[in-house]
């Protein structure tokens, strides 16, 4: 820019003058710089040259500082600048009558008058002529007035420049958003078309009002979020939380177009499947297809059209967004509608399982064949409580996670039990499927989740195939095993309650204690020794502390 180089030349000159001790001339040059820069700043603000404005303001501040500094020290420097002052004054004396209306900068070509502390040099001149004195006074007043106005102007300029800077920043953001984001939507070079125009593409065209009627703040927020994701992705940071948080916010924000389109979708979905009375399987299949078709197309438009700035996103990001929207749809009505259809399909299974769970609600671990070491009936209550949360969750992922964690919790409970009871042997156990499945069946029956069969089928139907071979798949299979086992369960299938076993167990535990006692009997009367062998059977659950061995014998 032309003015930029002019400013630099002037500034260089001012600095050189100041360095050479010519404070007066430097002062004038600095003022010239300030004025030129003020003009330049106005031009830059109009052009939204944000970075240039910022650097110019810094330079301007520096110049103003120098001007203020020099204005303070200038009278003190007068003696040293006196010879030059004379020349200037002499020149101005000639031109002054004609230059009264010159610009402030031109008017201040002379320094303020010398102080009285420096009379030896000034006084001879003051006494030369009265007319010169009055002229000097007049000039002095004019200079002071000009300086005051200059300071005011500069202060005003600095303030207005600061405001201009803030305004230009905001304008730059908005214009950038508009240019790169909003305008790209409307640009003729980015015209989108559906290769297949059908119900859901029309629906999205109709209800996704992203490029119109949307608050600028919403678009800016989305824009910054996408930029943040890009930065995170480039730096290798996890973007899952950022996606989850933002999506959760915008999906419940009534001003956001995604919130609106989801509500519209659920409304239409409920209308289509609200009163299904026959052909349930067919309806379920259609419902699933519609949910997935809608989501897939919505994502195509979001990432292909509106969120194009995040074009280098990976599949995972898209999948996370997909899951967030699916979760939202499920939570605002889709799950409830689907479940009602599934309940209709599996009403017989539900009825049978509900009854069995009620019938066997008092079943024990031992009756279900749980190995002795794992018969922690009360201990598993925490897992039963955890499983109760199933109905409070809406998404497939959350429900799957819950079932998987329930299975993992079994070993946690066992470990904790043996940790709390260090006297019992069992701190090093391996829990295989032979042990885990009966425990899970126990937990499952105790949880007594109503209509779990239909809920399971819904989960299975919407579960991603990728999970089928993983831990989630294993959890689902375990749940299915438990459901099927419980449905076919009869009283005769239960293991009999082992009273004898309890006694036997008791005996094993107390054998060592008895041995000590038998040593006592042996020492007192050898005749008792044989009879003591059946004493243990007669204890029948009494602890040795409670039982008086002498009485029993």
């Amino acid at each position, binding site marked *: 820019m032309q003015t930029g180089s002019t400013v630099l030349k002037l500034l260089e000159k001012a600095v050189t003058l100041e360095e050479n001790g010519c404070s007066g001339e430097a002062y004038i040059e600095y003022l010239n710089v300030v004025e030129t820069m003020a003009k330049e700043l106005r031009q830059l603000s109009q052009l939204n040259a944000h970075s240039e404005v910022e650097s110019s303001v810094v330079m301007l501040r520096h110049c103003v500082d120098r001007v203020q500094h020099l204005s303070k020290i200038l009278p003190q420097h007068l003696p040293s600048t006196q010879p030059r002052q004379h020349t200037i004054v002499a020149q101005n004396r000639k031109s002054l009558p004609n230059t009264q209306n010159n610009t402030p900068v031109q008017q201040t070509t002379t320094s303020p008058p010398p102080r009285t502390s420096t009379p030896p040099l000034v006084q001879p001149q003051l006494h030369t002529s009265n007319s010169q004195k009055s002229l000097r006074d007049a000039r002095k007043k004019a200079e002071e007035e000009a300086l005051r106005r200059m300071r005011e102007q500069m202060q005003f300029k600095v303030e207005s420049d600061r405001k201009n800077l803030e305004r230009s920043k905001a304008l730059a953001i908005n214009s950038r958003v508009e240019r790169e984001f909003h305008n790209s939507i409307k640009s003729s*070079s*980015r*015209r*989108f*078309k*559906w*290769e*297949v125009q059908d119900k859901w593409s029309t629906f999205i065209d109709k209800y996704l009002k992203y490029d119109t009627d949307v608050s600028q703040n919403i678009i800016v927020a989305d824009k910054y979020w996408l930029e943040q994701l890009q930065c995170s992705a480039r730096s290798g940071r996890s973007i899952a939380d950022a996606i989850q948080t933002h999506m959760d916010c915008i999906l419940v924000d009534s001003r956001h177009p995604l919130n609106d389109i989801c509500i519209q979708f659920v409304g239409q979905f409920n209308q289509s499947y609200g009163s299904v009375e026959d052909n349930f399987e067919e309806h379920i299949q259609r419902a699933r*297809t519609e949910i*997935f*078709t809608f*989501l*897939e*197309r919505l*994502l*195509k*438009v979001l*990432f*292909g*059209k509106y969120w*194009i700035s995040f074009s280098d996103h990976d*599949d995972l990001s*898209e*999948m996370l967004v*997909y899951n967030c929207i699916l979760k939202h749809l499920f939570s605002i009505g889709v799950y409830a509608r689907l479940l009602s259809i599934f309940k209709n399909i599996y009403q017989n299974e539900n009825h049978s399982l509900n009854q069995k769970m009620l019938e066997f609600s008092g079943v024990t671990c031992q009756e279900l*064949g749980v190995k002795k070491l794992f018969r922690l009936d009360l201990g598993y209550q925490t897992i039963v409580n955890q499983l109760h949360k199933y109905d409070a969750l809406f998404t497939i992922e959350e429900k799957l996670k819950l079932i998987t964690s329930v*299975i*993992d919790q*079994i*070993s946690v409970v*066992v*470990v904790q039990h*043996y940790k709390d009871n260090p006297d019992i042997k069992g*701190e*090093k*156990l*391996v*829990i*295989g*499927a*032979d042990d*885990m*499945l*009966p425990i899970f069946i126990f937990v499952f029956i105790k949880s007594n989740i109503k209509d779990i069969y239909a809920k399971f089928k819904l989960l299975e139907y919407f579960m*991603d*195939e*990728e999970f089928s*071979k*993983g*831990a989630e*798949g*294993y959890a689902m*299979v*375990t749940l*299915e*095993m438990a459901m*099927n*086992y419980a449905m*076919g369960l009869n009283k005769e*299938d239960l293991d009999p309650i082992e009273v004898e076993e309890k006694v036997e167990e008791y005996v094993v535990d107390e054998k060592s204690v008895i041995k000590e006692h038998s040593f006592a009997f042996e020492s007192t009367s050898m005749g008792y020794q044989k009879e003591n062998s059946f004493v243990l059977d007669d204890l029948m659950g009494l602890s040795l502390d409670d039982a008086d061995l002498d009485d029993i014998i």
Partner: protein
Amino acid sequence: MSRHNFKIVLLGEVTKGRVGKTSLTLRFVKNSFDDHQQSTIQATYLQKELRIGDKTVTISVWDTAGQERFHALGPIYYRNADGALLVYDVTDHDTFIRAKNWVKELRKVVGDDITITIAGNKSDMKNRQVSDEEVAEYAKSVGAVHLHTSAKANRNVDEAFLDLTKRILEKKSSAPSRTELLGKQNSGIIIDNTERRVTRTESRMYGKNGGISVADEPKTTQEQKQCCG
């Protein structure tokens, strides 16, 4: 480098004693045995990554409940299984008989798609009740491989799983993969004039809805040629 994920089910009878399914899994995945483990652990579902040639294979080992009361529900476990490791106890002939029944069931439910290995566990023990000839002949007749294993002595454990994985891989390589089939279905998905990988969302949809895409209208013919070749 291609990646695979195989599901392997462990089957074995629980009658008088245990055949050692869980111990085999633990030895293979964590290289530990009951005697040396530090605390209680759950070994129902374990995963291990293997490198076979230039391929990375993740095997998910599914332990199954072998009690008589769950036999009828066995097919729930076998579903979508790529391989099965049938474990019997060399000191208990009944467990071998039961292993034979597992094979019959597997072939009936899953067909020939499943790759089977028969492992005679507890081979470190002396009182063997199953003869080598009998089991070798049987394994050959059902297209399975037989190995004597010992989780306790760490004998042939890695070999059993590795051999099974290799055979599954060979079987899968000879048949057209799901990805290849998907690739054929998904060709032509173009967004923003740039070919993209098929996402999970898309792969979930294809085959259900057919090809759907939203495409930019090309700016110029030359540009389109440059992008799409």
